[in-house]
């Protein structure tokens, strides 16, 4: 709480100083902003996502949920640099065990050099360049939650340095990171036997190429504006129960528990993003392969552990807003209009298996032939964008597990759930 107060004092003092100068000082630019001069400013950003949920059958989750509450600062420092710091605010027990609101996990914390369009450099903590949906902000998604693959396979944020730019029709991103992203963190403290040394995690290498590649093909039409990309990561995973895992949509159960891995973890991904007029069509496919060196019951190598995910989603603004632009309702609710209304649908799957599929399949974490399991999810939704800062999301979600014995409720393979969420973002 002290840190929250300090932030407020800092902002107030900046405001007071800046207000004394012409065309500088505190301004409202969709959000509270302090302008110090040309290309030098500081924005205060906040996000609050509140939702009401129902489950059938019940999975033991709370009806009300506050998945995201964040406060951040973002600014420019001349035309050469910009920066951002954002942190989660959450309830955590204090020393006496009483829940108190306090700052939690750091989200973005980076500094960026941006002088040239063709070569830019970012350093700090930010999202690794893998996954279209994973690298889209949580409040800018078409659905309340990302697809399973975007949180299970795509690595997410990490500390690192990345070079990126768009010298031509293609945008490139190439980086080196400390670990392997928040979603790929090691789970088990390494068990070291006498005479063995602790192994380091990472570093991870990640790269992505995206662009309007269909423009080079000899046909015309609106599809030429589609953005296509491929991505790759490579890292080293220490021995242990450290593989990626399959969590159910609500994270209440693992439909595929971690297995023992040791060696290289590679991801490959492909993405498709097309937004003609008021509609959009997005699709991703991604796969990870993790080595399992010396992990058999007889200390021999096992076949790779393979996770595969894909999704296809479509959206349509029935009120006619252009999907490509920043979504501003043509007739905002505050002006007596209906706001912007968008219909959404997504089908997705996340599955796990071993590379070897010969012989009896087992569920234990050292089996060469792992019994596969997957979760197929269909989401239907309505987004009601009332103002540029507020959005209501209604999602109906149907989950279907391949192996009912490894579902959130053993023996039940299908689940329905629904939510109504209010996004407040400035």
């Amino acid at each position, binding site marked *: 709480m002290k840190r929250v107060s300090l932030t407020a004092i800092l902002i107030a003092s900046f405001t007071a100083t800046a207000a004394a100068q012409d065309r500088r000082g505190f301004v409202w630019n969709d959000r509270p902003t302090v302008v110090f001069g040309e290309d030098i400013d500081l924005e205060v950003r906040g996000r609050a996502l509140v939702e009401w949920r129902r489950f059938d059958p019940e999975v033991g989750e709370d009806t009300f949920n506050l998945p995201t509450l964040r406060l951040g600062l973002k600014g420019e420092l001349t035309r050469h640099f910009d920066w951002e710091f954002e942190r989660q605010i959450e309830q955590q027990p204090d020393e006496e065990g009483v829940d108190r609101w306090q700052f939690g996990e750091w989200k973005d914390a980076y500094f960026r050099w941006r002088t040239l369009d063709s070569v830019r450099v970012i350093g700090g903590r930010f999202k690794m360049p893998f996954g279209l949906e994973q690298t889209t902000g949580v409040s800018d998604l078409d659905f309340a939650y990302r697809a399973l693959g975007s949180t299970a396979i795509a690595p997410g944020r990490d500390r690192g340095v990345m070079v990126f730019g768009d010298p031509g029709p293609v945008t490139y991103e190439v980086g080196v990171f400390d670990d392997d992203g928040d979603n790929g963190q090691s789970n088990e403290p390494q*068990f070291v*036997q006498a005479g063995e040394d602790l192994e380091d995690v990472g570093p991870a290498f990640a790269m992505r190429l995206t662009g309007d590649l269909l423009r080079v093909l000899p046909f015309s039409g609106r599809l030429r504006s589609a953005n296509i990309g491929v991505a790759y990561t490579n890292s080293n995973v220490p*021995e242990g129960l450290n593989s990626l895992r399959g969590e159910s949509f609500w994270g209440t159960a693992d439909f595929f528990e971690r297995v*023992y891995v040791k060696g290289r973890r590679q991801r490959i991904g492909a993405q498709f993003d097309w937004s003609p007029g008021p509609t959009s069509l997005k699709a991703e496919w991604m796969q990870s392969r993790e080595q399992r060196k*010396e*992990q*058999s*019951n*007889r*200390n021999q190598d096992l076949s790779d552990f393979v996770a595969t995910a894909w999704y296809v989603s479509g959206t349509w603004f029935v009120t006619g807003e252009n999907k490509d632009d920043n979504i501003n309702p043509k007739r905002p609710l505050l002006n007596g209009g209906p706001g912007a209304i968008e219909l959404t649908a997504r089908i997705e799957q996340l599955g796990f298996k071993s590379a070897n599929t010969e012989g*009896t*399949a*087992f*569920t*234990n*974490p*050292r*089996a060469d032939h792992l*019994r596969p399991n997957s979760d197929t999810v269909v989401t239907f939704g309505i987004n009601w964008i009332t103002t540029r800062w507020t959005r209501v999301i209604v999602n109906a979600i149907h989950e279907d597990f391949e192996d009912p*014995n490894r579902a959130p409720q053993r023996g039940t393979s299908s689940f329905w759930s629904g939510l109504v969420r209010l996004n407040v973002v400035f």
Partner: protein
Amino acid sequence: MRPLIRAGVVLFVVAFGVQPLAAQTADDFFNPGVLHRLELWMNQADWAKLKAAFQENTYYPADVVWNGITIRNAGIRSRGLGSRSSTKPGLRVDVNRYAESQAFLGLKSFILDNLTQDPSGIRENIANQLLTRIGVPAAREAHTRLYVNGEYAGLYGIIESVDKSLMGRLFDGADNGFLFEYKYQLGSPWRFEDLGRSLDPYKLRFGIKTNENKSDATIWGPIEELVRLVNTTPIETFEAVVGPRLDLAAFTRFLAAQNFIAENDGFVGYAGINNFYFYRRQDSSSHVFIAWDDDVAFLQSDFGITTRLEDNTLSRKVLMLPRYQAMYTDVLVAAAAASEGWMRGEIERLLDMIGEAMESDTNKPYSNQQHADERRHMLAFPDQRITYVRCEVAKQTGATRPPGCQ
């Protein structure tokens, strides 16, 4: 290939080559007549973790090899109460933990007893063999040299798990009853007193092993009722009221058999009831006791034939009935008869069979000298016990005392 040459090759192979293995059965696996060799193949890290966290019930995968048969990816965990050990862990092997369809000789699981509480190494084996001979339900048991990742881990007992498979074998295929494992509560010895109307004390003591999805009232209600009726029913109507809920004849056999083998930690144990399974037969309200973990039996040959029978509500009231009192002494006499000419020879055979395996077991928590002392004790027990029991029964019943009585 010409037919003549092909026939010659076949004949050669049959005569000198592969000898077809005879079909193996669970009886072969639990055959106490041979010292088995069992191999576990576990990832070195898992074996180290299991030993480091031996107090936990975490499962690890392992390949199990016996007599040319390999069980791939069985589930292995540390087991036991006082017998848990980091150097020589007692193990439970779940054959089908990671593949429901996997079976091994019709077994879903078995126990690898580390024999850490029995320096003789044979108490439970002899006890179970005798109990079976006199009609008391008990698990089968054999001895094995256990090798983990190619290294000798010690002498172990292979014990049949008390599970649906065993219930099917003991009760003519009727394996869908309610099976309970008695959970001893440290610091709270129980002697079948009424624990009140709540089911909680019974849930604590009687761990359900089958039909776990049924309601608490269905699972533990009949046990609460049985204990209440044992405590409240006058002796005049005891057999009529309690009889349908507990096989009194089987209980009397169980009680007498435990006394004959001088089991000091059994149903009338020194610290209350301990070491048994309890089975409510399929489609019945009748319960029966199943012997378990008699590894501290054979305490002393002059173990009194009525030791602590009065301390336990159930044994006291059942043996107040003349029919069961007579049955109790009859079973003692029958046990003596079944042991005569068999027990000493079997003890000697087992001790000779396991001798080298026991002596070379460097993970056992007792010395070879202690094992040698126990060998002498066990060899002396049968003849002394048979005589003592016969004399005491004669004294109690007024029959002619046999020779050798003091």
